[in-house]
């Protein structure tokens, strides 16, 4: 006989004592938790030694110990008899109406006879069977405890405290606070289920209810704890099977959720930490960036500075190049000058070592181009100059020395100049020797002297000839004497001029020559004055005219008469020669001499030729001639002639 019926292995109560269960390709559609409920059910439903037949890809998974594998490939298993069976979730198959506690109703029936007894019984019953509860006031302070509250509450850490929330065991506290708060806000009952409370040695799932009760104007709250299911130890929580599979599932899910929450929390915290780190890193990066930017700007500035320094350097470099070129040019000029100059020049350092020299030196010293660096004193010389070394030492004192030197028995002449070689105003680093060949100059001077002597000779000869012609042409008399006297005066002046190479003649000698015949009657006073040829000739004639007049008509015509001749070189800005001829002790004269050659020569000639002034007059009865001539290098110079070195004389 075969009976076919629809059967849900999940919802319907199981069959029992079956010989064979064939359940193929069903489990693969179920989740592992449902599978874990169904496999023990199959074990329960089979008789001892019954067979289980599963699909090709299905398995017993965790419940391998309930069955013996007969054919692994075909998935055929035989029920194994066990001493202890895993708890079965059979309660879920009970009808809904029968799920409550039936015993309570029955115990109430017909038992209320005496109220005191009954109240006592009720109290006992309540104490024994009613859920655990606590009464608290509005602020959560406990007012009353029922029995067994220690399961849910424990003394709070610290001083004694009546606060219900502080007393709640772990897992209960948050829900308790939320429930209290909610009930307080709404004023209505608040229920919360499936609260996992950590109790000593395990976890208890409880339902929590908070009931506000108002008595007068005071409201208190009753908090009721109802256990749901047994206490589960830690092992059980992690256990393989649980009869109450729904609770287990919820529990697992909650646990997973809790773990996930914790993980999420720690992940969030890590994320926040990481975020913080990122933020601080970002700030650091920003500051680093700013620093980099400022560094970049500094670099930019430095770069610009470098560029400008570079440009300056380039400019300086260009200037240096130009200077070097100029220096090269100057050096080349100097070299060319050295090569071409005829002036023998030697540069000596402080130890008298030759630093350089010009080729012309080789005429005086036995010097070869390689002789730079040798001491000058080691070299032989053609010069007759024994004092050379001592002169050089003198030059180191800062004094320049000039020497006229002769060579080859007087046929060659050199002017030696020894000068200090200064590298700054007060440091003498050596000596500069120059030797100028003045042979031709000496020769020219000699020739000039010869020519001057010849000229003087010719002029005087001519004068002599003119005198002779006059002597023979004119009859004897005053005119002839005057004429010859004037020729004579000219001749003397030529003598004086030729003595100084026809350059000048001293005034004093000019006068004394002219007045030599009257010696004792003449006084001459005056500073040194030099007359150029033109002035010398004119003044000689003037003095001659005065000197011929005096013996005839003036002071020299008497034995006691005299002539005072004096001159000064006065004047502030423009010096001038003031010459006076004063006659004393002679016959008194009333007026001026008769105008003639002499007076015209004096009065016009001085102004005409020398730009001076000449006056003739009578002072104390004697003739006075006063001549003023401004200083002029063409005519008159004051002071004795300077002692210039005369070229050509041998070194003394």
């Amino acid at each position: 006989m075969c009976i076919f019926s629809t059967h849900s292995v999940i919802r319907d109560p199981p069959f029992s004592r079956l010989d064979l269960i064939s359940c193929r390709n069903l489990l693969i559609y179920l989740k592992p938790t449902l599978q874990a409920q169904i496999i023990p059910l199959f074990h329960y439903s089979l008789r001892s030694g019954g067979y289980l037949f599963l699909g090709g890809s299905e398995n017993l998974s965790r419940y391998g110990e309930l069955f013996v594998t007969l054919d692994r490939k075909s998935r055929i298993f035989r029920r194994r008899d066990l001493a202890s069976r895993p708890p079965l979730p059979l309660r879920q198959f009970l009808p809904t109406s029968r799920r409550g506690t039936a015993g309570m109703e029955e115990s109430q029936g017909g038992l209320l006879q005496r109220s005191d007894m009954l109240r006592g019984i009720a109290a006992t019953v309540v104490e024994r069977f009613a859920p655990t509860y606590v009464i608290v006031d509005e602020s959560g302070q406990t007012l009353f405890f029922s029995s067994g509250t220690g399961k849910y509450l424990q003394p709070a850490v610290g001083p004694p405290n009546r606060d219900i929330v502080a007393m709640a065991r772990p897992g209960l506290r948050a829900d308790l606070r939320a429930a209290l708060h909610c009930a307080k806000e709404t004023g209505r009952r608040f229920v919360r289920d499936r609260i996992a409370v950590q109790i000593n040695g395990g976890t208890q799932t409880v339902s929590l209810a908070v009931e506000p009760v108002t008595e007068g104007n005071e409201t208190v709250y009753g908090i009721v704890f109802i256990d749901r299911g047994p206490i589960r130890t830690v092992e059980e929580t992690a256990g393989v099977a649980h009869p109450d599979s729904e609770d287990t599932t919820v529990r697992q899910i909650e646990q997973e959720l809790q773990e996930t929450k914790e993980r999420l929390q720690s992940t969030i915290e890590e994320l926040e930490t990481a975020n913080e780190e990122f933020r601080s890193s970002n700030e650091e990066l920003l500051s680093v960036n700013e620093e980099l930017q400022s560094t970049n700007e500094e670099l930019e500035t430095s770069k610009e500075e470098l560029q400008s320094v570079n440009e300056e350097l380039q400019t300086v470099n260009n200037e240096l190049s130009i200077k070097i070129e100029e220096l090269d040019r100057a050096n080349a000029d100097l070299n060319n000058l050295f090569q071409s100059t005829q002036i023998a020049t030697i540069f000596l350092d402080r130890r008298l070592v030759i630093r350089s020299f010009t080729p012309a030196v080789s005429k005086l010293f036995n010097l070869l181009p390689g002789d730079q660096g040798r001491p000058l004193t080691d070299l032989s010389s053609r010069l007759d100059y024994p004092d050379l070394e001592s002169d050089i030492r003198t030059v180191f004192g800062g004094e320049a020395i000039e020497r006229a030197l002769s060579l080859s028995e007087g046929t060659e002449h050199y002017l030696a100049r020894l000068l200090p070689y200064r590298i700054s105003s007060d440091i003498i680093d050596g000596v500069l020797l120059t030797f100028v060949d003045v042979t031709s100059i000496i020769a020219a001077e000699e020739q000039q002297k010869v020519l001057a002597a010849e000229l003087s000779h010719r002029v005087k000869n001519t004068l002599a000839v003119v005198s002779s012609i006059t002597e023979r042409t004119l009859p004897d008399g005053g005119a002839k004497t005057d004429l010859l006297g004037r020729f004579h005066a000219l001749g003397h002046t030529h003598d004086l001029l030729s003595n100084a190479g026809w350059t000048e003649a001293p005034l004093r000698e000019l006068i004394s020559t002219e007045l030599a015949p009257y010696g004792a009657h003449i006084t001459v006073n005056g500073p040194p004055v030099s007359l150029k040829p033109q002035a010398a000739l004119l003044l000689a004639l003037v003095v001659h005219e005065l000197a011929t007049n005096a013996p005839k008509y003036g002071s020299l015509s008497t034995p006691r008469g005299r002539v005072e001749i004096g001159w000064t070189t006065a004047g502030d800005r423009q010096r001038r020669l003031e010459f006076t001829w004063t006659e004393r002790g002679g016959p008194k004269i009333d007026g001026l001499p008769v105008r003639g050659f002499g007076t015209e020569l004096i009065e016009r000639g001085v102004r005409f030729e020398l730009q001076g002034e000449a006056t003739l007059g009578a002072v104390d009865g004697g003739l006075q001639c006063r001549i003023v001539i401004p200083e002029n290098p063409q005519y008159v110079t004051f002071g004795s002639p300077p002692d210039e070195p005369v070229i050509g004389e041998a070194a003394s």
Partner: protein
Amino acid sequence: MTAELEGVRVLVVEDEFLVATLIEDMLHAAGCIVSGPIPRIGEALEAAGRGTYDAAILDVNLGGDRIDPVAKALSYRNVPFAFVTGYGTAGLPGDYAERPHLRKPFRMTDLINTISGLVHTSRPKVV
């Protein structure tokens, strides 16, 4: 001496007083109107540019100064001139070597002839 140069205006530049007065005397004797004598180059140059002359007598060397600027100024104004010199012909200013010249010492007839030559060759005779 005939006054054949009557009224002829002559500029005299000579620095030697006795020579200058000699020339002055000779020209006066010949009837000339004498300007000068002038002994210095500055004054001579000024006179050459300013006055009116029929002829001029110039010393080549004035106390060391050459006469050339005065000669140039006179040439520019077409005033005929002759040099008086102690040097030879070689001593004359290069540009004016062809000009007439009197060698020192000279006689009055030499001077008068020279002036006449200057006056008669350079322009029609003054009426």
